[in-house]
């Protein structure tokens, strides 16, 4: 069905279910309990999971399949955001034209940057993409100020033409973004007992696009095109002597992943209609690399998991402050408490980067295949305990790892 075999179809259904149930699944702790601060089921954060999931899924098509490590993908994220906001200013607050332009513009940018950068491979390719992204970042602050509005960032205002939509809302403000009338900011709170779940239109819009993006990437992974991309990573010499030209394949992968990034950028602007140049900075490019590696390079689920974990830590750990720490460790003797809190402080609040850095190191050292490999190890551990030695890898020829997991 849908061009997928049974196993992939099951996989897609599970992913779809998990995505749609996210507002419930990420809200496991009742309101008011001490653990409620670890809940992640609020719209703003869930939208980020979906959007950065899309960004990472697209990045993985390039990095995971071909092995070309781009350090400049944030440029496309920025291009997507600017394009979308311009559509909100000129056309209407409907997100559809914005997203379409975001994907087209980032695709064109990726075509140019990819065409030049792909003349080199390995570290030189990475440096070239990094240089291009930093160049875009600097241009956004200087020459391109009329388009980007420089340091202030591009925003929607009451004076924008919005020729197809409302210029001013009924209440006299700038109207909110919507999808054919469905307000992105609309949300429904449902309380069950002491649990409270928020179902937001914005999240479900992002989630549905993320599921489509995931499905398309699954198709690419299983296609002859995807096979060629994996062959490029494996042995370019043999690929050439098989009669294949690697350049257009890598360029196509680069453009596709650039369009995914542009889509993510457009969605960011659709949820919060402003665009700033800092979105293009190299730290943002580095973040998607971390997400992909943390989750598992070249796997289907990895980038999504990685994006989720990093965005979760950014939001949750950065919110934990002194007060919270005192609550947690208040039961310790005073001298010990101050030592523990002193140590813990470095890992929370603005120090959340430390936590993510440590997690990243642990994963790269012990699970080179990322979190997905961790999951697989746990699965095979339980399988072996249950099934005895029937699944003993020593007595079977090594099978090629399945890229789906």
């Amino acid at each position, binding site marked *: 069905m849908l061009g*997928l075999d049974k196993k992939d179809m099951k996989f897609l259904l599970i992913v779809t279910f998990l995505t749609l149930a996210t507002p419930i699944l990420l809200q496991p702790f009742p309101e008011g309990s001490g653990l409620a601060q670890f809940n992640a089921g609020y719209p703003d954060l869930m939208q980020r999971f979906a959007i950065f999931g899309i960004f990472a899924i697209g990045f993985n098509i390039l990095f995971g399949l071909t092995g070309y490590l781009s350090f400049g993908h944030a440029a496309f994220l920025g291009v997507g955001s600017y394009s979308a906001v311009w559509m909100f200013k000129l056309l209407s607050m409907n997100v559809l034209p914005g997203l379409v332009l975001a994907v087209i513009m980032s695709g064109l940018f990726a075509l140019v940057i990819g065409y030049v950068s792909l003349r080199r491979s390995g570290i030189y390719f990475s440096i070239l993409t990094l240089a291009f992204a930093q160049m875009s970042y600097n241009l956004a602050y200087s020459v391109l100020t009329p388009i980007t509005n420089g340091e202030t960032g591009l925003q929607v205002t009451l004076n924008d033409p919005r020729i197809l939509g409302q210029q001013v809302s009924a209440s006299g403000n700038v109207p909110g973004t919507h999808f054919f009338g469905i307000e992105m900011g609309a949300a429904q709170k449902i309380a069950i007992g002491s649990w409270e779940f928020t179902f937001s239109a914005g999240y479900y819009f992002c989630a549905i696009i993320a599921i489509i993006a995931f499905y398309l990437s699954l*198709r690419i992974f299983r296609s002859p095109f995807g096979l060629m991309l*994996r*062959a490029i990573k*494996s042995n370019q010499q043999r690929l*050439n*002597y*098989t009669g*294949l030209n690697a350049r257009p394949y890598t360029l196509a992968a680069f453009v596709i992943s650039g369009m995914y990034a542009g889509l993510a950028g457009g969605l960011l602007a659709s949820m919060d209609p402003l665009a700033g140049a800092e979105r293009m900075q190299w730290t943002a490019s580095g973040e998607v690399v971390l997400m992909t590696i943390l989750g598992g390079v070249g796997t289907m689920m990895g980038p999504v998991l990685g994006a989720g974990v990093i965005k979760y830590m950014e939001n949750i750990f950065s919110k934990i402050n002194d007060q919270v720490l005192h609550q947690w460790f208040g039961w310790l003797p005073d001298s010990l408490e101050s030592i523990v809190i002193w140590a813990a402080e470095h890992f929370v609040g603005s120090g959340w980067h430390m936590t993510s850095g440590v997690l990243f190191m642990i994963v790269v050292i012990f699970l080179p295949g990322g979190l997905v490999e961790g999951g697989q190890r746990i699965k095979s551990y339980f399988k072996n305990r249950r099934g005895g030695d029937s699944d003993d890898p020593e007595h079977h020829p090594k099978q090629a790892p399945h890229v789906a997991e």
Partner: protein
Amino acid sequence: MGILEVKGVGKRFGGLQALGDVNLSVQENTVHAIIGPNGAGKSTLLNCFVGKLIPDTGSVMFDGQSLLGRTPYEITQMGVSRVFQTPEIFGDLNVMENMMIPCFAKRDGSFRMHAFESVAEETDLVEKAEQMLIDVNMIDKRHMHASSMSRGDKRRLEMAMCLVQDPKLLLLDEPTAGMARADTNNTIDLLKEIKEKRDITMAIIEHDMHVVFSLADRITVLAQGTPLVEDSPDKIKDHPKVREAYLGETQQ
């Protein structure tokens, strides 16, 4: 006119004249062996055919067209396949995936954007790839990770990847190096069968004289970058210059 015409090819690496003045004519549907001691320039010569190296002097014509200045993928698309001295396969992929790639390249050319089809649904190509694996006795290994196989298996896989493209000219650089005796004999049988069944020309570099004399219609002896003699296998066997320069070393 042979299918491959090499005229006055020379190649220098810094101070080393790797190829002097090589003239060679490979006739269609024959097996032409190139033998010679280590460092004679045999691999360098093949590299000049497939676009990996550009010779300093001379010309290389295949099927009436010059091969010089063309990229490796263009030359492969013209019908020239190559088996390398150290096996070049897609180590990260499994055997069947390795086989599918040349099948796609043969059918679709050097680039095609088939991003929304499924590899598994290309039943014609899957069948073709499987038949080739049966021919080289590797069908039971089709799910194996290519990099985890023995060197001999990697070579057979590489050969199958070349043969499945039905090349007009197959260049083999020591195809039996690193193979056990039994595998070597299988390879000889396979190549013999291919030669009989298909319209294929082969140029083969080989140190194993048993392989050379079982397959070759014509032999060129290369020493220090220049052809010493070219003749039929029977004549080469008894040629005094050859015995001295080459066979003497390997047949003790």
